[in-house]
């Protein structure tokens, strides 16, 4: 156990690409022990092997060992969100995707938002989570496809089809999948330099209103997301 943690710490210290032999030498552990521990940590997905199969790096699951540190958005970014709040009668929430997780960084003080730990753990039931899942469709879901309401999409094939729609349109929608009466719409905020997904901007409201096309509302949401891009990336 102590050795396994030492191996994990050594991969963090040496950086991605460190090989089994290098770890064994650095820790003065017997080779066979090192290989066994590395295979164990890879099997549990705390470590991954790089494509050359020699080097190791931290796996996505190791992120669960630490609370993701998400810096609060800048004043300029908050001003854009506040501007949108002034124009619509819906709840406006901003979430960061740092660490591959949904973290609310600017919750609307006047409207209820979903509980942050539910958003982080069950991304399949929120519009903000669906945006993140659509970006990394092959990533396994830690919490499984838990059902919250009769509208929750818990069939993997249906969710996959829905995520492809989200990826194609850039708009995620959720009607009553977490709470029967509530729903939300969300669009992504992408880095202007490399196009990577950094944050999501969501509108929350009654489920039946979310289900409408809301063309003008979505345009307004997209405009504000575009204005947020240089401020958040």
């Amino acid at each position: 156990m102590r050795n396994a943690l030492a191996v994990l710490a050594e991969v963090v210290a040496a950086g991605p690409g460190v090989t089994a032999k290098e770890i064994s030498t650095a820790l003065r552990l017997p080779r066979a022990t090192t290989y066994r521990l590395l295979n164990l940590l890879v099997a549990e997905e705390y470590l991954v092997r790089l494509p050359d199969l020699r080097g190791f790096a931290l796996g996505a699951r190791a992120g669960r060992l630490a609370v993701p540190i998400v810096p609060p958005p800048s004043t300029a970014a908050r001003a854009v969100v506040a501007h949108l709040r002034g124009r619509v009668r819906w709840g406006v929430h901003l979430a960061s995707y740092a660490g591959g997780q949904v973290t609310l960084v600017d919750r609307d003080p006047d409207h209820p938002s979903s509980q942050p730990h539910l958003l982080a753990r069950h991304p399949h039931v929120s519009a903000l989570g669906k945006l993140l899942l659509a970006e990394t469709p092959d990533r396994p879901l830690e919490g499984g496809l838990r059902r919250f309401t009769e509208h929750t999409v818990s069939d993997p094939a249906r969710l996959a089809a829905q995520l492809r729609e989200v990826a194609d349109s850039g708009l995620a929608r959720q009607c009553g999948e977490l709470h029967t009466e509530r729903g939300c719409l969300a669009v992504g905020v992408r880095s202007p330099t490399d196009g990577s997904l950094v944050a999501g901007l969501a509108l929350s409201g009654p489920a039946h209103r979310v289900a409408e096309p809301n063309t003008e509302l979505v345009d307004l949401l997209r405009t504000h997301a575009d204005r947020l891009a240089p401020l958040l990336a």
Partner: protein
Amino acid sequence: MNYSTRIADQVRGQSPMAGLDRRNLGPMQVFAQSVSGAAPAAAMAVVPAIVAASAGAATIWSVLIATGLALLVAGCIGRFTRRMAAAGSLYSLTAKGLGAGPALLAGAGLLVGYSLLGMASLTGAAMQITALIGLAPATSPVVAAVLVVVLAGLVAACTIRGVRLSAAVVLLVEALSITLMLVVFGVLLVSQGIGVDSRQLVPSGTGVGAVVAGVLPALGAFIGFEAAAAMGVEARRPFRTIPRAVGATAALTGVLVLFAAYTQAAGFAGVPGGLAGQQQPVRALAAAEHLPWLPTLLDAGVATSFLACSVATTTALARLLFSMGREGVLPARLGRAHRRFRTPHVAIAVALPVLAAVPVVLISLGVSPARALVPLLTTAALGYLVAYLLVCLAAPVFLHRIGELTVPSVAATSVIVPVLLVVLVAFVSTAPVSVAALVTGAVLPLIGARYLWMRARHPERVAAIGLYDETSTADLLGPPLPPRHPPPGSEPSPRSEPPPGRER
């Protein structure tokens, strides 16, 4: 080269195996895949008598040694599957140790093995079902041929519809099959009297040679036990579940066949010639013990075993073709995945008609299903043995390449490779010049020509051999999420589902 460029150079935004239902199968489903590939129920009914023909009173010992050898092969496969998640089974694994040429040979062995085992299991299932519904197979070739086509259609439907569905079917059917076989042999053992027959455990009057001669047919019971190695992309924790599934299948098959062998050998202990002289040992024992309903259970157990085996081998065969399609070794269409079902539907649609057509043609030519089974199964075993030999040879080379060579891995290979070579030579020399020779003569020049052509015209395809589900950026810990790339080979399909949110 510093670490950050090391990682940036090699990690792609998306796995080359994208399109399959990634990381979605539980450990039991993966295990069932391997068990069904080995089809222990059929082995329990047939193998002990064949082993006894060579080993006589030492049948148990031959089966025990074969189990040990199968565990060694499982260990060699495990050295790969603990480190890489492949869909191409032993073909992709061999590539990482021995390179493109030997990998193609292993791939050809597996193609032959999976295809012929698939044909054999469809034929066997059809034959057992005609026996169950009371038709004599000789008088009802039409029924058997129609059954082969119907079963192939069912297998195609459930393997295309989704890997979770086909894995669930395999798990259910195989569990039923093993339960039936345990009941059959349990009843036989109890009716014979529970006391341990020590004559079966301490053989007298049989030499070491007889034991060794019995190992060859006993190994036949394990053929197909590596089927889980094709589920690398789809298993939820592949590095843990796949090595365990393959090892546990070798152990389980060994225990089941030992149990069946002991029951049958003890049952015939008083008969001159013993188990070796029996054509249908379980039927004879059931008749002797006045249990007329037992053969029906046996038929049902073997039929379900063949059925599960046909789904498992089709699943493995399709993923092998899929990998070869993605690499460009076979036409790229085979490397397509269905957008909604996330299965290699083109590979399945190409493979299953062939798997069904060969038995149908054989039956329509007047070959009885029971007679067709023998050359199909022996030729399949030959293909598997070639692949097992190459993957065992590749294991220490692979470990050396990645700088993780250990003494046990070299020791295991240096034991198992000579044994498998002897088995292979014995196999080729005892088998009559037949289907096996024909298939080998057809397949070897084909893959040789394909290899040389690729080396001359498309060296990048030779370099691609051994594609597996590598670590992609999504698996790494780190904030930057990559822009989305369309997976290679996945087809744009028309939007079939209404946009979410407008469904109500």
